[in-house]
């Protein structure tokens, strides 16, 4: 079943926060399936529940009700430790603000998720180098984040997200801090990774970013407003590499 099991299943998920004694319904009854190899975008205005959805899918949080299944594991049933492990192995995060460790080199940042899974250092270094090559940053491996451009930092972050070969690549506004040209390059990289078989979930509020996906899930007030098939996903033609700043 593992081959056909979806990467992520959300089944009647509800998430309620207490804020100053008042319950806040961040998500109400959301159901969603991300089949393996799919490319999905979640869109919605702020306050629609995008971040909450991302935290749940990313195993950072557990639902108040319903089931969140990531890589065949019901996240709500897991201990904190097991949840941390699945987060480290089954999910690769890409953040708007890159979130690299400032004192580690690009290669060390990429190797970080493997470090926490106890991968031996030789193997870590080898895979980090391979991944940086794959995102076009092979020659920048020894640079620290502050010596890299925004686009390069996001490439390092994407390489890091791939470190443990996750079931899901989870990107939160991945182009939000980049100029449009660099943003396009990054989206092109996601398209490549999707083409190579990775499952991708992009959370964004920008339509032109969402249109890179096969499917757009529109969130509004904590509910799925509608799902939209993208008939002709934006897929940059004639990939160009290394042009980002």
């Amino acid at each position, binding site marked *: 079943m593992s081959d056909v099991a979806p990467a992520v299943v959300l089944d009647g998920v509800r998430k309620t926060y207490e804020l100053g004694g008042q319950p806040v319904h961040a998500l109400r009854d959301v159901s969603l399936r991300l089949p393996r190899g799919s490319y999905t975008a979640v869109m919605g205005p702020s306050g629609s529940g995008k971040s909450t959805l991302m*935290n749940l899918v*990313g195993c*950072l*949080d557990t639902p108040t009700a319903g089931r969140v299944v990531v890589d065949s594991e019901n996240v709500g049933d897991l201990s*904190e*430790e097991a949840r*941390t*492990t699945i*987060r*480290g*192995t089954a999910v690769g*995060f890409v*953040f708007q603000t890159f*979130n*690299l*460790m*400032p*004192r*580690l080199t690009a290669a060390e940042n990429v190797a*970080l*998720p493997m*470090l*926490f*899974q*106890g991968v031996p*250092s030789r193997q870590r270094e080898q895979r980090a180098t391979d991944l940086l090559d794959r995102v076009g940053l092979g020659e920048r491996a020894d640079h620290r984040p502050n010596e890299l451009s925004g686009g390069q930092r996001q490439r390092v972050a994407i390489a*890091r997200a791939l*470190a*443990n070969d996750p079931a899901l690549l989870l990107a939160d506004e991945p182009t939000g801090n980049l100029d449009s040209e660099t943003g396009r390059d990054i989206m092109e990289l996601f398209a490549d990774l999707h083409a190579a078989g990775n499952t991708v979930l992009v959370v964004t509020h920008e339509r032109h970013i969402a249109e890179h996906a096969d499917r757009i899930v529109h969130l509004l007030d904590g509910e799925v407003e509608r799902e939209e098939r993208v008939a002709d996903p934006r897929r940059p033609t004639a990939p160009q590499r290394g042009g980002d700043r």
Partner: protein
Amino acid sequence: MNPVESFRMSVRAIRGHRLRSVLTTLGVAIGVAAVITFVTLGASLQADVIGEVSGDQPPLMTVSAGPADDQPGPPGESQAVFTDHDLEQLRAVEDVAAVVPQGRVPISGLAAGGRTLGYNRLTATTPESFEYVATSGFSDGTTFEQDAREVVVNEPAARLFPGNVSVGDTVGVVRQNGSRVNATVAGVLAADQGPFGNEALPQVYVPTDPFYETRLDAPSSESPQRVYPTVTVVASDFSAVETVQGDVQTYLDEDSDARTLKPKSYEFRVQTVEDLVDQIRGLLDTFTAFVTGVAVISLVVGSIGIANIMLVSVTERTREIGIMKAVGAQNSDVLQLFIVEAVVLGVVGSLAGIVLGALGAYAATQYVDLAMTFPVEWAGIAVVVGILVGVAAGIYPAWSAARTDPIEALRYE
């Protein structure tokens, strides 16, 4: 996570804040240095004083009788209760090489070189005394003979008289009743140093016979015998000291004349050089412990510094903690990272402190003119303390780091 990896990451973090890390480390370094300095100074002082007291001492013990609840220490006014019979019995104890009585002969003055000086006490003893008790050696002449009108003076006593007295001179002993007895100077003892480096007091020694006249009826013979307030028992060698000490004590308590002559509330004390050294050591230990205690305060301040900086560091790196947790760091990994970091600070601080402390101790011992005795075990203790300080100071910050909610942490600016 592998502790080696934690160590590498921690060193990275420490080097990322060089100045701050140096200042934090300095707090611990100064604390450890203060402790090491004072402990070394104490140990050096102790080694010096004990070396003076116990250096080249024969295996002897001092026997005296004093009030039972008297404070420990060198015997003060001991009562004259040890009879000639007791001396004889003590000489028969196994492994006893010599028994040397000592008594005070109260006088009015001494006359020599045409002058009479007020001087109130002679020390009556036997020639063996110069072999075992007053061992500084003769700078001139030799010991007196028993049954002879001879005296031995030490150099400070020889200098009391105009033009000094020397071997062959006649010294007049003025008794308390004003009568005068002449005696010949048989020898001059070399100047000796007291245990604390001060010059010895003037001493005039005379043979017990004929000068010592303190007598009591001895219970063993029911006839008057000389009685002495202190007796020095010399064992044949150091290994025998302890048994001899026990045997002497047993004889005194069970069979001696002194047992019936001493007041009921008095006790016999058989004190070896070792006992005296122990007392001095105990005294100096107390002193060292006190000063070290003061120094420990600065070590505590130093470790609070580490705790403080670790707390700041955790707050400052909230976002990094969030990142690490997002990519799969367990709470235990985060805990380990921060504790290792604090321990590294503590250990580096204490290593620096050992060096600083050794330098400080060297300077201090030079200043007070002592040979430095570096207590090596304290270097080990300092490293252990460094680790403990690190763990103690790091445990709360590390715990609060481990508990950080990754969602909140990633949002943290």
